[in-house]
Each structure stands twice: as C-alpha cells, then as structure tokens.
C-alpha cells in the first residue's frame, strides 16, 4: 500500500569488482585527507593568537565611567528590563555626600551583576541605557571552572580608572543621534550637551 508518493526505492546496488577491491577507493580517500596536511589550519592558537573581531563586536560588558572617573550608571534598571535573557540584576543605593567623584548620579548601582551564562550578547542593554553607562566590548568572556564565577559583578564589569576602555567605535554619532531622537523621553536631557562631556544636572 502506498500512502504518499514521496517514497523512494532504496538502491541496493551491488558493488562492482573494482569497488569490492576497496583499495582504489581507500587510496582516493587517503589522498583527500592527505591533501589536508598542506591546507591552512582552520583553528588558531587561542590565547596567543586571536581571530580578528569587528570593532563593534559584542563581548564582555563594561560599565563606563565619565571623564572624571565617576560611574555613569544610575541603576535605573532599563537594561535589566530590556534584557531578553534576564541576565542582569542590580541593587541601587543613594549617593552620600562626598561620593560625587565616585558616582555621577544621585542614585547608583550598589550591586550590578550580569550572568554571562544567561547573556546572549544581543546588545539590547547597551541600546536601552539612557546614561551611556553600559557597553559591550570586543573582549571575550573568560573560561571558568565554576558556574558561579560566570556571574560578573561590578568588580569585573566596571571600567578600571587607570585602564579606560575606548568604546568610541560603538558610540558612533549615529547611535548618539538615535538616542537623541525626539519622542524618546530620556533624550531630552542630552539636548544641547556634548556627548562625551559628563552630564551634570
């Protein structure tokens, strides 16, 4: 009984005498694999050698500081809301007197964690951030032995003061312009202000 007309007759082709010898076929196969001896390696010696990545590669996040070294993040939580993988958690705290050099805004993130195992490196957090605080960088996330070690806290995310990370390639004018689009509420505070100057209200 034929149910569909998609069935195919299986070919049980009998091997010819030449094929039954196996040897020609084997030699042919060995020549193919042998030719790969002289091909370019498809892999690289990773830690010493890395593959070139695009300037806008989406890897290990950085929490930027402004040019005075104060953290830009205000713990608004927009990144966490935007995150499709629910990888971001944070806890906010109020800035005390005398901490103005540390935190740019009155409210800051006391705890800011990204679970790198959940993160899909989509970059939506970066897009959502009104304070230009979080960026993805071209650094690859390290390997770890324990799952917990993949939850990156502020110590691993915040930019080091003496080792600033250049994200100007990601922070293109187009992006800045986009964020200034009227109709996006949070852009109002950028009005008339230089992007790279700290935003002091």
């Amino acid at each position, binding site marked *: 009984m034929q149910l569909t007309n998609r069935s195919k007759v299986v070919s049980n082709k009998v091997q010819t005498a030449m094929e039954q010898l196996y040897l020609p076929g084997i030699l042919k*196969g*060995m020549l193919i694999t*042998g030719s*790969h001896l002289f091909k370019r*390696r498809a*892999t690289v010696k990773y830690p010493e050698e890395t593959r070139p990545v695009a300037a806008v590669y989406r890897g290990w996040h950085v929490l930027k500081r402004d040019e005075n070294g104060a953290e830009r993040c205000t713990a608004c939580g927009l990144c966490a809301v935007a995150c499709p993988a629910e990888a971001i958690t944070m806890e906010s705290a109020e800035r005390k007197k005398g901490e103005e050099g540390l935190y740019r805004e009155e409210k800051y993130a006391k705890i800011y964690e990204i679970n790198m195992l959940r993160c899909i490196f989509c970059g939506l957090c970066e897009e959502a951030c009104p304070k230009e605080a979080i960026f993805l960088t071209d650094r690859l996330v390290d390997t770890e032995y324990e799952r917990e070690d993949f939850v990156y806290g502020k110590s691993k995310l915040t930019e080091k003061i003496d080792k600033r990370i250049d994200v100007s390639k990601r922070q293109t004018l187009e992006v800045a312009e986009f964020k200034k689009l009227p109709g996006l509420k949070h852009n109002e505070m950028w009005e008339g202000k230089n992007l790279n100057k700290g935003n002091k209200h």
Partner: protein
Amino acid sequence: MLTFIIYKLIICVAVFGLSLAVAAYSTLWERKLSALLQDRVGPDRAGPFGLLQPLADGGKMFFKEEIIPNVSNKFLFILGPSLVMLTALMTGAVIPWAKDAYVAGKLYSMQITDINIGILYLFGVVSVGVYGIMIGGWASNNKYALLGSMRASSQMISYEIAMGIAVIALIITSGGTLSLREIVEQQDAGFANIVWQPLGFIIFFVCALAETNRAPFDLPECEAELVGGYHTEYSSMKLGLFLFAEYINMFISSAVMAAFYFGGYNFPFAHELYDAMGLADGSKWIALIGFGAYFTKIFLFISVFMWIRWTLPRFRYDQLMNLGWRILLPLSLLNLAITVVVEFFRGHITF
C-alpha cells in the same frame, strides 16, 4: 660470561625503553597527525611543541581513580591488561635493529636474540596477546566488554590465517628461513622482498591493521555499539596499558613489516654509501645509519597506520569477516601459488 649478561641486559633495557618511548611519542604523533589531517593545530601546550604531552597523558592516567568492579574476577581483571602489555613488549625481542657492530673490539649483534624460529615466536606471542583481551573482557563481567573481546579474538584469529599464509609465501621468497635476521640479511644482497611479494605485502598490511585493532578494523572498541569494547570497565593505568599496548603493537608490526618487505636496516645503495664514507664492515657508524634507515621506515609505516585511521570509517562486522575469509584468505592462497611458481623459475625451489 659477565660481559655477555651485561650486554644482553643493556640491549633488553634499550629495546624495552625504545618500545615504550616510541609508543609514547606515537600517541603524540597520532594526535598531531590527526589534527593536521583535520586542519587543526593539535596538542602544543605541554612543553615545547607539546613534546611533554605523552608525560602529561601518562600522569593523568596514573592519577585517575582505580575502579575494579565488585562482580569481576579480580585476578583475571588485573591479568588481562598485564598480559596484553607483556606480549606487546615481548615481540620486540627477535627484531634485528641494526647490523652487528664492534664495540670495544668485540662484535655485538643489535638484537636481543636471533632465534632460528623468529617468525614462529613472533606469531606465537602475538596470538597470546589476544588472551589478554579475552581475559580482560571476560573478567569485567560486562556484556559490552565480553562482546568486544569476542570480536577481538574472532577478528584476530580470522586475520591470522591470511597473515600466516602471506608470511609462508614470504619465507619461500627469502629462501626458507624463519629467522628475522636472515630475512633482513638476504635482502641486503638482492632486492627488497616487496619486489617479489607486492600482493603478499598488501595482505600482510591489511592483516596487521586487523591484528593491532586499528581502524578501520577497531570493532572491538567500537564506541557506537559497545561503549568502550573490551576495556569498558577499565580505568586508570589499566586502561592506559590497554591503549598503550596498541601503540607498541603498532610499532612492532611496523618494524616487522619494514623488516619483512622493505629490507629492515638495509636501504638502496647502502654499500656504495658506506664505501664512499670509508666505513668497514662492523663499524658503529654503519649500525647507526642502518638503524636510522630502519627507523625512518618504521616511522613511515606508523604514519600510514594513522593516516588510514583518520581517513576510513569503521568496517561493519559482517564486512570484516567477509573481507577476512572470502577475500584475503583466497588472495593469500593465490599469492602463495604465484610465489611458488615464481620461485621455481628463479631457481629457489626445486622439486
């Protein structure tokens, strides 16, 4: 007498160490070659160019937990890998590694022992090797292991027949001697045996692949069907011994093939070279150069073994048996017949 014992001791230890070292570095070369054939870089982390990788592998094996199943027969369980390793190492005894050389005014042969039934000894020891696998597989009290060891033994026995007949043809070609040394020496004067035994060589080579359980005949350890085959239950260094013995077997069978069919430590225009260098018979340098030539051949054979492994998929079990009994056995008989006729016309045998 004392010098004799010391000399034998030294050469025994040397062959022992050589087998182990070559086997260890074969594992590295196998990984490296497989990487090269697959467009990868291969192990290069342990030491310069990854040269310490075998040590790292061995160390890892030693530090693994040793598990002996409760339901297994402990004595046999331990005997299995020991026997495999023992027989693998024993085969090196009859292989002539180089020409005789004068050391401190005395002529020494570079071979542990030159028994006049060397080939029989070789085959005897190799066939004892299968007991190790059988015992190990049976003592594990595991169905997969048992199936694996059954496969191993039936495969080895089947292919030994074709191999034996191919070797009989070889013995006829080399004038009826069973001593490996004489087989190598008689290739010094004339051509290498491969000229007279091309078919025999191919049969021997295929059988050697099957005897050493190398791909495409590695059904005894077929992961897809048998988990790990006969060494499923083995862990730690006992597993290491099984795996290691495979490499020693590969080394020895390469050495045997090079000796049987490619003249061992002889090479074309060797005498012209020695004359040009002004070396007299029995010089240390001749032994050394011959050893180098022998080793180049062995290395090439080992590489071909590996090359085949990383090219071919595994045979199916019925294909394996078909090939052994219905193709290789008749072929080897045909080869024997041809050899007899050819040797009759060459005048080596008379009726």
